[in-house]
């Protein structure tokens, strides 16, 4: 039987919700735990109406107890459930860090491989709402620095759907970071298509002059910059990592080798960030091919302000990516 492709236009938010619905329908062991996920429908509306469809037993409103919620998910996962926690803001991950880094991440290893912790923590990060220093961060590097935790960050609507479903089927804990600036993004989802495998980066644009490696909202900024660069005769390859653990270096390698120029773009801060890891790998593995230093375009090493003008000035934008690329050729 040939399955037909079903292309549906929806928002990033709806794609996430659809992924939860489809996965919950398929696997009765999936439960959702989090603050305001039930009656309120999620602070950003992702879990809207799920409580009506799946009931209070599976969509559980919790007190404001992040450490306890994540810890409960660890125990539930070890007891045969597939918990999906919604952490309202990634900024609250500090409160859950013991449960994530010392418990969830280490249980399989410490206990000699007896059991895994198949849970997902969905959360969202990033700037764009004047939400201030404690509600606007990009903290993926915290997670990447902890072996044992998987990390996915969807940039597109299609990935919001497929990556979340894949995350919910992983054998190990996955931190799934959405971007608050993408929830209303519209795009097509092919519900029946075989998605790109988990852990594989996507090449969204091909060009011979430069490769830009990025993820999450900066993918869109990089694509915008690439259009402008093309007007100047510079053709960029854009790679969307999709997952940051695992990192798909094999997709990056040939593009760096071909173009000899690599830029890494992140909204998260520069120092000890995702870009640092990628730049190090590129330089180690592709050193002989490079014509220019690998350039990191990243968030400033500062907290995020509530003032819109300062907030915007704290993170990369398309112009900054474009200008940096031009400098790499001057």
């Amino acid at each position, binding site marked *: 039987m040939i399955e037909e492709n079903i292309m549906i236009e929806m928002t990033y938010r709806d794609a996430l919700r659809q992924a939860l619905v489809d996965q919950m329908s398929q696997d009765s062991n999936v439960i959702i735990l989090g603050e305001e996920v039930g009656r*309120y429908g999620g602070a950003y509306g992702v879990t809207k109406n799920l409580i009506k469809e799946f009931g209070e037993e599976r969509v559980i*409103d919790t007190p404001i107890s992040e450490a306890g919620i994540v810890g409960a998910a660890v125990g539930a996962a070890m007891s045969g459930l597939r918990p999906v926690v919604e952490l309202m803001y990634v900024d609250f991950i500090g409160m859950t860090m013991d449960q994530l880094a010392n418990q969830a991440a280490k249980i399989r290893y410490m206990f000699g491989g007896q059991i895994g912790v198949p849970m997902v923590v969905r959360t969202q990060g990033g700037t764009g*709402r004047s939400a201030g220093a404690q509600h606007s961060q990009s903290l993926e590097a915290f997670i990447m620095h902890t072996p044992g935790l998987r990390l996915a960050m969807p940039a597109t609507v299609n990935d919001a759907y497929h990556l979340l479903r894949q995350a919910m089927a992983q054998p190990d804990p996955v931190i799934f970071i959405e971007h608050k600036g993408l929830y209303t993004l519209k795009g097509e989802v092919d519900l029946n298509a075989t998605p790109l495998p988990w852990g594989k980066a996507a090449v969204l644009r091909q060009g011979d002059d430069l490769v830009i490696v990025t993820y999450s909202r900066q993918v869109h900024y990089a694509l915008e910059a690439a259009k402008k660069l093309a007007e100047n005769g510079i053709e960029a390859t854009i790679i969307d990592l999709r997952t940051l653990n695992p990192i798909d270096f094999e997709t990056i390698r040939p593009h760096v080798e071909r173009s000899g120029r690599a830029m890494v773009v992140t909204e998260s801060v520069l120092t000890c960030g995702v870009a640092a890891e990628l730049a190090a790998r590129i330089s180690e593995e592709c050193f002989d091919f490079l014509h220019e230093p690998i350039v990191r375009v990243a968030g400033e090493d500062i907290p995020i302000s509530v003032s819109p003008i*300062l907030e915007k000035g704290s993170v990369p934008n398309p112009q*900054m990516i474009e200008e940096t690329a031009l400098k790499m050729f001057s």
Partner: protein
Amino acid sequence: MNSTAFDASISSGSNSRHVELYKIMRRIRTFEERVGELFARAQSAGSMLHLSIGEESAAAGFCAAMEPMDKFTTHHRGHGIFLARGADPKKMMAEIGGKEAGYCRGKGGSMHIADMGLGHLGANAIVGGGIPAIVGAGLAARHKQDGSIAVAFFGDGATGQGVLYEAMNMAALWKLPVVFCCINNQYGMGTRIDQATANPALHERAAAFGLKAETVDGLDVEVVAQAAQEFCDAARAGNPGFLAIDCYRFYGHARKDKSPYRDPVEEAEGRKKDPVLFSRNQIIKLGLFDETELDALDDEIAEEMDATIDFTIAQAEPPLMSLFRDVYAPSEPEPEAVRTRINRILAND
């Protein structure tokens, strides 16, 4: 217009005290209404603005018992508390607008307003985040023997956070001059208190740690003020406490929330617990002021608060170069901008 902190020398239950507390509450309510207006006019920095309308008695009543050197932290719904401690509404509004003239130069905003000069160690956007700092402030007060106390203001939702219990235990263990003041407006976002705990008698938990503990109704600011006085006096004598003040969150959680999860009947009932109206009626009943005089007072406050919006709109954005200021002490070098760094790296070929 008097924008200083409540004059604690005015004796409890006295006529001028009734009026003074009413004034503070009216100023809070009017200020919060103007915050709503600032948002509606798209002049606020974002929409994460949490109004304390319905909770004015907690702020006015509790702060009436505090002394000028006392320290405090607040939660994200802290405009009223700060006003009651003597904040300048213009500098507050400018901060809420993300302007350079604000208390925190536009960097903090509504949820991170602070003023060390007034003992405000900071509002917080992390539920429970500001609570343990008062344990430290209490240790410092004791160390310096300065007679001050420290108060943590937080919402009922923060009782879900483990850090509250760690802080309460240390405060009780070390007999620190601190008070935990829980403003129970019955909701944490869309979650009603009885959906977040099996025992909503919150003060009972504090009692279990050995803290002086009580819940008072927030309808009558005078009742709140009297309880607060007892708790502050006890704390100053080395008996820390936990005071819960019951009230009702009149409007949505933040500016975009219309509380669709609330029963309209419950909401109408809840809004009847209006401490500002109650105080106004008391004043009339006691014959201290008549309607006309109170209207005149309200108008004066309205004018003052209208001016905060005009002031805010007229203020400048923070300069872009301030981005790198105050990450570290002024004596330290500022972090290098990413752009500067890129230019440096790519310049020499």
